[in-house]
């Protein structure tokens, strides 16, 4: 298996193995059909997953990207963290009051300030400092972003929302189309019979191909696929630009961004074109000079 994985193009390897699974499911469906004379819906969803995993996985990989974004900019977690901190602070305050009263009762009730007062006061100060820093950081976060980055950040999430909605519709559209073909297969099997597995397979492929040929040219599909791609690539672009602007804004950042490197590539190519044009002109001038000399 490892040899095949190493040897074959990765797409070839994956499609072969997915089709082996599809074959197993179809054999199982066929054996039940031979036994009971009907085709049931069992295993068809698994076949859909095997067939379309190859196409859907890239989108689902991008869906994982959301987790990366949220872990890098954990706004929700920061807000949730503040709640925990407040609850903890209240608990500490009540513990402190309780401790203070008990200490006063057990020691000298007339003493103005106890060692516990100092201890509690010290910790309250530390806690206040921490809390106040946290309070300043959190509302300030939107103002910390460099100019431009804020809009890319907001757009990144808008495109993300559009992408997730489009992807859900896209997956549903493919699945519904697939199930229309499965229903046609089941209906056919109720009316007529397949003479062997090969005929059953051919019919299944034929009804699937018919449904998908029509889907892939439909206005609904074209519009949805266009929106899916636009929102996905806009999301990627906005996220990258947001990160690039954060990097640009950090004087300690030692790396060039992709956009900066792209600009360098663009200039190098322009210069290559100019050099090539100059070389052509020099060559033409040389030919002209040679012919003038020979004329003399």
């Amino acid at each position, binding site marked *: *298996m490892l*040899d*095949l994985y190493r*040897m*074959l*193009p*990765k*797409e*070839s390897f994956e*499609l*072969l193995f*997915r*089709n*082996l699974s*599809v*074959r197993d499911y179809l054999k199982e469906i066929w054996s039940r059909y031979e036994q009971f004379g009907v085709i049931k819906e069992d295993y068809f969803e698994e076949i859909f997953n095997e*067939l*379309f995993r*190859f*196409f859907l996985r*890239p989108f689902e990989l991008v869906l994982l990207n959301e987790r990366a974004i949220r872990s890098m900019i954990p706004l929700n977690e920061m807000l949730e963290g503040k709640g925990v901190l407040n609850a903890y602070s209240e608990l500490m305050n009540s513990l402190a009051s309780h401790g203070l009263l008990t200490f006063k009762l057990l020691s000298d009730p007339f003493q103005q300030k106890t060692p516990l007062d100092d201890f509690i006061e010290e910790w309250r100060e530390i806690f206040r400092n921490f809390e106040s820093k946290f309070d300043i950081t959190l509302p300030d976060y939107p103002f910390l972003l460099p100019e431009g980055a804020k809009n890319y950040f907001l757009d990144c999430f808008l495109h993300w929302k559009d992408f997730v909605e489009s992807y859900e519709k896209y997956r549903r559209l493919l699945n519904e189309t697939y199930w229309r073909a499965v229903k046609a297969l089941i209906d056919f099997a109720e009316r007529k019979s397949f003479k062997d597995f090969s005929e059953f*397979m051919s019919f299944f*492929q034929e009804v*699937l*191909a018919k449904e*998908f*040929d029509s889907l*892939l*040219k439909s206005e609904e599909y*074209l*519009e949805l*696929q*266009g929106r899916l*791609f*636009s929102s996905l*690539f*806009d999301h*990627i*672009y906005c996220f*990258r630009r947001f990160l690039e602007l954060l990097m640009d804004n950090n004087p300690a950042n030692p790396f060039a961004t*992709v956009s900066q*490197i*792209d600009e360098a*590539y*663009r200039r*190098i*190519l*322009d210069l*290559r*074109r100019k050099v*090539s044009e100059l070389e052509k002109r020099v060559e033409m001038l040389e030919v002209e000079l040679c012919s003038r000399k020979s004329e003399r």
Partner: protein
Amino acid sequence: MLEKIREVNVKPWTCEFEVVHEDWLFKLLHFKGEKKHRIPLLFVYAFINRPYVLDLHEDVSVVRKLIREGIDVWMIDWGYPKRADRFLKIEDYIDYIDFCVEKIRKECKVNSLTLHGYCLGSTLATIYAALHPEKVKNLVIQTPPINFDTENALALWAKHIDPKRITRAVGNVSGEMLNIAFLLIDPIRLVLGKYQGLIDNLEDPRFLKEFYSMDFWIFDSPAVAGNVFDEYIERWYHRNEIMNGKYTVGGKPVDLSRITMPVLALYAEKDHITPPSAVLPFLEKIPSKDKRAMSVDKGHIGLTVSKSAHAKLWNEAIKWIVERSD
């Protein structure tokens, strides 16, 4: 059950060649063989996939067939664009064709040569022929997309995407993205039918060799440079500029009325990438007096690699080329 696949040995390029020029990404290849005809032939390959499909294995090698007939064969290999090549333009491809044509003209001491385009290479070859008709003796276009206003799924998809939003996000359009797109155009036949056929033939070494020769080629996909992708989708698919007479290269108009040289169009009846309607209106439009179309009842790739196409169409096509190569 899968043991026999491990024994498959796929080696593309069956004919010997020399890399005679290399410019960053692009290469000019010259095939070895006995020259019996004066006019050389330059293959202009597409900037999608790799050129060795024309020399995939001995039984279906177009290059081998041409060499056997005594044609001096040259080929352009566009390489594997990287991020650094993102800003290449179609104009750069046309310039390199011109560089190669000049080099071959000098080396072979001829004024003009046969330009043979494959798929999108046909589009480039046609543009070149319109810009420099004096340097093109014969124009051969194989599965050519020249009229982009067609109703096949690929054309409809291309018309419904905004290429600039893709390339500004990812730079180049990667081979993996293209692979997924080309399979998704016909998912049932290409993902289910084809591989179920493979499962039925896992014990047949000959089938396996042919299947994997194709599969290695199909998934050996270079990226398309970002700018080239933008131009290809916007100017060719969205605006059909070549057919509408609006296309320019470096400010020079690409005028199809200048295509007066002999033209041979090879197309496939069942082509889902470049259907017959992508070439037939072009043939009607050009003023060439010596123009011919040959077709085969196959798909886009079947025209190049099917045995039936080699048994019939290619013999006739090569005869047509040979007759115009002295």
